């Protein structure tokens, strides 16, 4: 027997409440103005094509306690301001406070002229030249690298191909084994003809990626989220924070066609990284070449990169100093949640400072 106890007067009250919040909230929505992202002051120190390498300014009067700079390599998917999205939710700020000298690669927005950029161009070209630039500026042979998501995979490839230039490697929510049974994204691309896709549309539009990510949880991400939003519409600060996140979610750069082709075919469809069979330029990527200390951070409720996809790294790197850090949250929460600010960035800083 179904236990249905909604009374008409209660339902009417709920509707009135919802209507009132929606009506009031529209004012806050309009007054929200421009949505700013990226809160920490920074300086562009190197530019090449659409790439910009930023160095983040330290808080006045403070000095980096770690003399080895840290380069953050973000994914090509979505924009890197997720790491610095608002004053009280900033991985960048947390790292600065933890004594790191922070650099970040901003890939920009590829257009059709970037179609033929390959993984070789990105990793052995752009990343390598950014590392060289930082090394040159600091008079060092090697620096610390922090790779995020796909940027983590790129960082692993880079560290394998240029082990002498990476002093310590931190990977965050980074896929390594691309075919764990719970990997929805992987399952979905297995029967897609990637050559046909790339040959037909060239660069992969951001809309296609948005659709894919929203399809992971369509009812929550395209439905329930907006109902929940009504509950906070009367708080201008929360409205602004919500809109900031909304902007990031839909701010998806197109993907350079040739890089997308190799990334999906070799990594997702062939799972060639764990087999040591990925070829990038003149190199074969062997994770066993990575002998520097490695800190691998993953999110326990990650629906994009399942924990097992990340922890596979442990058995593959050649390092004797391998550490894992499990964060009780999701793929985005690991950067923006209050808990992440207290736990993740201080842990990275502490780990790096010891090495």
């Amino acid at each position, binding site marked *: 027997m179904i236990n249905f106890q909604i009374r008409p007067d209660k339902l009417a009250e709920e509707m009135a409440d919802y209507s009132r919040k929606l009506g009031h909230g529209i004012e806050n929505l309009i007054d929200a103005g421009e949505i700013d992202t990226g809160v920490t002051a920074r300086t562009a120190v190197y530019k090449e094509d659409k790439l910009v390498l930023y160095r983040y300014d330290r808080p006045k009067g403070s000095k980096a306690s770690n003399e080895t700079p840290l380069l953050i390599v973000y994914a090509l998917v979505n924009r890197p301001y997720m790491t610095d999205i608002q004053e009280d939710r900033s991985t960048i700020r947390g790292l600065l406070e933890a004594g790191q000298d922070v650099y970040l690669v901003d890939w920009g927005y590829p257009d059709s002229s970037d179609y033929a950029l390959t993984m070789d161009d990105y990793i052995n070209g752009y990343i390598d030249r950014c590392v060289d630039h930082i090394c040159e500026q600091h008079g060092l042979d090697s620096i610390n690298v922090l790779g995020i998501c796909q940027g983590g995979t790129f960082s692993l490839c880079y560290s394998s191909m240029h082990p002498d230039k990476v002093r310590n490697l931190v990977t965050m929510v980074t896929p390594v084994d691309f075919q764990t049974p719970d990997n929805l994204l992987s399952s979905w691309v297995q029967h897609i003809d990637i050559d046909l896709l790339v040959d*037909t549309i060239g660069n992969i539009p951001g809309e296609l990626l948005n659709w894919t990510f929203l399809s992971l949880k369509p009812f929550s991400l395209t439905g329930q989220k907006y109902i929940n939003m009504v509950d906070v519409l009367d708080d201008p600060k929360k409205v602004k924070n919500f809109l900031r996140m909304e902007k990031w979610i839909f701010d998806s750069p197109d993907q350079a066609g040739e890089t997308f082709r190799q990334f999906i075919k070799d990594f997702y469809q062939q799972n060639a990284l764990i087999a040591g069979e990925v070829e990038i330029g003149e190199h074969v990527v062997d994770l066993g070449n990575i002998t520097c200390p490695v800190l691998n951070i993953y999110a326990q409720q990650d629906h994009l990169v399942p924990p097992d996809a990340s922890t596979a790294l442990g058995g593959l790197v050649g390092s004797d100093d391998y550490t894992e850090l499990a964060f009780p949250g999701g793929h985005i929460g690991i950067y923006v949640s209050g808990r992440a600010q207290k736990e993740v960035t201080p842990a990275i800083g502490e780990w790096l400072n010891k090495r």
Partner: protein
Amino acid sequence: MTKNAFWNDDWMSTQRQYWEQWNNMQQQALGVKQPPANPWEQSMEHWWSAVQGAMPAAKQDFFSKMMDQGKNYFQMAEQAMQAANGQENVSEAWAKMLSGLTESFHQKPANDPFKQATAFWEMPLDNWNRMASAMSPLPGDTLRGMPHGDVKEHLDRILGTPGLGYTRETQTQYQRLMQAAMEYQEAMAEYSLFFSSMGEKSVKLLQKKIGDTPVESARQLYDTWIGCCEELYAEDVISENYSKLHGRLVNALMELKSRWGEIMNESLSTMNIPTRDDLRTLQIRMQEQRRENKKLVSEVAALRHEIRKMQAESKPVSKKPATKTVKKATRKKAAPRTRKATAART
């Protein structure tokens, strides 16, 4: 625009009308008259159409999403209440409503009272259509109404007929385009069917879940419904079957676009306008050259560095303390840095 313009007047007035409709509904329990099908939704639509013109374009899409979900939010509760109207046993009426909903996933007549609740399960499809529209010269739903089944088989035979005469190539291109369009339509139909069967299962799961816990608010009902949908969706879309459906849909759309592009290229060529294929060749050649240039620049820099190093080593050792320049050149880790040396190791 005044602050009151958005809600105090128009909308609250329509909301008042809505409460009156609810009163009517209660009266209907006494057999007085029939209320409109979805009064709350109607009032919301009315309000939204009045205010959306004054809203900045950038915010309209966001607010539309909230409006759409607001409608979904109350839809089930509203329908349940209507189903229960006049019934002595509300729970039995509710069970009847859920049965009706299940039935809706099998057939959707135009006057189906549960049409909108079942449309909730079209959200993944709707997302696909938006994306496909953004990538296509045709609206995303253009191909949804195309013939299939026996008609498709018949058309397949016709379209399979070899082209003849001077325009043979063109005929073949258009035949392939039509075949690709039909394949896409069929893939889309198969994809839709998958979601409709999933929707049916979600109603059964909802029945099971609310059988255990008393439902006391529309929000609780909505959240439970979302939870059921996500739970089933997560189970089904990880399957090999779904992976194949998904692949077929994407491949079919790409095949269609590819055929369309082929015809476009042909037309552009006849007008002596560069085609996408021409551009692609140039993009690849240009990137190859840029790659070579960057490699050469890097090698020249490395050679200069080596020369400076050799020159420094050949100078007599100074008795002065190390200069700032020398200090800067000090490396913390002694490791070769040239690309050649790295390549040899990997």
